[in-house]
Every structure is written in structure tokens, then in C-alpha cells.
């Protein structure tokens, strides 16, 4: 596993789950440190599994702190760039369900092959294919709005 190849991918994966840059950075780095501690011959999709679990733990932490406090910013609230396209993309991604957003990031941003996404999400190839198409249609609809 080469960190150069995966750092940005895991960062984006975490960012679109937790919606906060600093938190995403911390979770990314924790992911790699955990991966290092594990038996290092495990395949790269294990990185995503670690990242996903860390993000879930983070969600749980926030919920126990306060239900009213929205400490996790929505995905379209964390952007500093004023570029219109970036905001529009973020907004559109934010409108998707979390599962669909995850699939979009894995497939279209991180360019992961379908076989890998099946391993990461636990979906069958057919189910994945169907979910991806639906998610894509929705995202395109939001982007064109």
C-alpha cells in the first residue's frame, strides 16, 4: 500500500462523511496509523473499512455529546472556496443520502473499480450497479438544478 496513492482518497471519503476539513484530516491520519498497526499485507480496501468505522465512531461521539448541537457541519457548509462550481457540486452531493454519497465518492472521485467498491460496501455487483445508476441520476438532477 502506497500512502501517496491513497491519502487523498481516504481524505475525501472521510470529508464527505463528516463534512469538516480538520476532522477529516485527523480521521485520515488515524486511518493510516491504524492500518500500519494491523498486519500490513491486508488489501487496500481495508483502509476504507477502517476509515468508515472511524467516521461512524465520530458520529456516535457527536450524538452522545448533544443531540441539538450540530457540531458536524453539513457537507455544503465546510467549503472555503468561493468558486461557484465547487459549491454547486458540494450542495448537490449534500442532497444525496449518505450511502449514495459514499458510492459517488468511491466511484467517480476516487475512481475505485466496481469489484473494490463491492468489497468496501458489502453490496453485490448487481445491487451496486443499480444503486450507482440511481445515485448518479439523482446527482445529475441536483447538479442541473
Amino acid at each position: 500500500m502506497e500512502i501517496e496513492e491513497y491519502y487523498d482518497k481516504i481524505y475525501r471519503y472521510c470529508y464527505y462523511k463528516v463534512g469538516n476539513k480538520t476532522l477529516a484530516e485527523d480521521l485520515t491520519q488515524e486511518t493510516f496509523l491504524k492500518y500500519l498497526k494491523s498486519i500490513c499485507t491486508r488489501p487496500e480496501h481495508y483502509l476504507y473499512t477502517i476509515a468508515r468505522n472511524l467516521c461512524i465512531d465520530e458520529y456516535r461521539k457527536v450524538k452522545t455529546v448533544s443531540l441539538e448541537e450540530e457540531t458536524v457541519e453539513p457537507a455544503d457548509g465546510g467549503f472555503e472556496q468561493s468558486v461557484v462550481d465547487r459549491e454547486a457540486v458540494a450542495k448537490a452531493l449534500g442532497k444525496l443520502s449518505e450511502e449514495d454519497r459514499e458510492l459517488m465518492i468511491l466511484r467517480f472521485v476516487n475512481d475505485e473499480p466496481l469489484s473494490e467498491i463491492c468489497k468496501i460496501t458489502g453490496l453485490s455487483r448487481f445491487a451496486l450497479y443499480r444503486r450507482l445508476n440511481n445515485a448518479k441520476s439523482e446527482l445529475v438532477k441536483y447538479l442541473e438544478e
Partner: protein
Amino acid sequence: MELKADRLTKQYDNKIAVDRISLSLEKGVTGLLGANGAGKTTLMRMLSGLLTPTSGEISYDDMSVKSEDYRNVLGYLPQDFGYYPEFTGREFLMYFCALKGLDKKSAKARCAELFEIVGLEEAADKKIRKYSGGMKQRVGIAQAIINRPEVLILDEPTAGLDPKERVRFRDLIGELGKESVVLLSTHIVSDIEHVADRLIMMKDGQICWQGVWKESDGSLEEFYLKQYE
């Protein structure tokens, strides 16, 4: 993280290019100011391990500057450098990624990142021989930071850059200086006065002044010119 030089001297026949220079560089940006012929390039080549001093010692933490371990943590941009004429910008960087030990997939990811950092995404697949002077310099800077160096030695890195490119470069150096030892040389004061944490001024192979320059100390340019009177 400390790059130390102790009484470094480099002599060629009757000329002493660097004369008993001692310095200690830590994390942050150090600007090396001096006119052409002051000995900046010779000093930087010795600090990069390319040139053996006539006398004196150099070390980085507990590494020899001639070792592979040091080369793994070093980034260097010479004052003049060339390129194989058949290379595109991307091929040039991929070649150096390979020489710096990155495998193909990592090299691809790293190159994409570097082109974004130096603002050459559009020109990445064009031949370097068609690049402007500023573009060539930016590719050179990208090459120097491929391996995320702990020690970054840049010899006149702003030569050929237009004002917008200089600003971008200063921002990049400011970022890099947070976690690395950066030494950059120039004879243009404005290039480093706001970005350098420390300054070293050289004249005739020796250090004539070194320290931290504050705005309250007045015009750095005037002070620098005074050294040459």
C-alpha cells in the same frame, strides 16, 4: 531537524569560494542573500552533498550529506538545470519520481498533486522545450519537492518567474517552511524579506551578517546594500 556546517571552506587553486563558514539551520525558511560570486551556490552545493569541502564538516542530524539517507530527505533546485528534450512536463516529473524511489501509482498521484501546486496542470503534457522560462522554473521547483523533503535547498528559485508566479512561490515556501528546513538563495531582497524567518548575508565567501530581520529594523534593502560598500 538540524543542518549543521562547521568551518566550511572550498578552495579552487588560488580562489577561496567559501571561507570558513559555520551555520546551523533548523525548521523554517532561511534566506541566503548575496551578490553573484559571493559563494552562495558553492555553499549550497556543499550542503546538498554534491561538492566536497576542502575542509570543514557538514551533517544533517546524524547523517552524512553524502549518504543515500540524506538524499532521501533532500530536495534541491540548482540555479541552472536542464531536461531531456523529448520529455513532457509529466514525463520529466515521473522520471524523477522513479529516481526518488516512488512506484508508478504513487508517482502518478504525486505528479498530479505537484502540477496542481505549481499551477501547471494545463501544460503537464506539453514538451518542456516549449515551456516559458517561468514554467520551466516551476517544473524545477516541483521536482525538488517530489519526495516531501525535510531539507529543501533552492538556488535562485525565483529567477524567471513573473510577479504573479513569485507571489505563488512565496506562499508555497511559507507552507513548506512550517515543517522543513528551507534554504533559499537570491540576490533580490523582496523575494525573501517577508517569507524568511532568518537571513544570512554572504560576501566574498564569508558570512557578513546573519540573524532575524524585523520591520522595525528599517529597510532590509538598504542594510543589504550597505554590506557591499
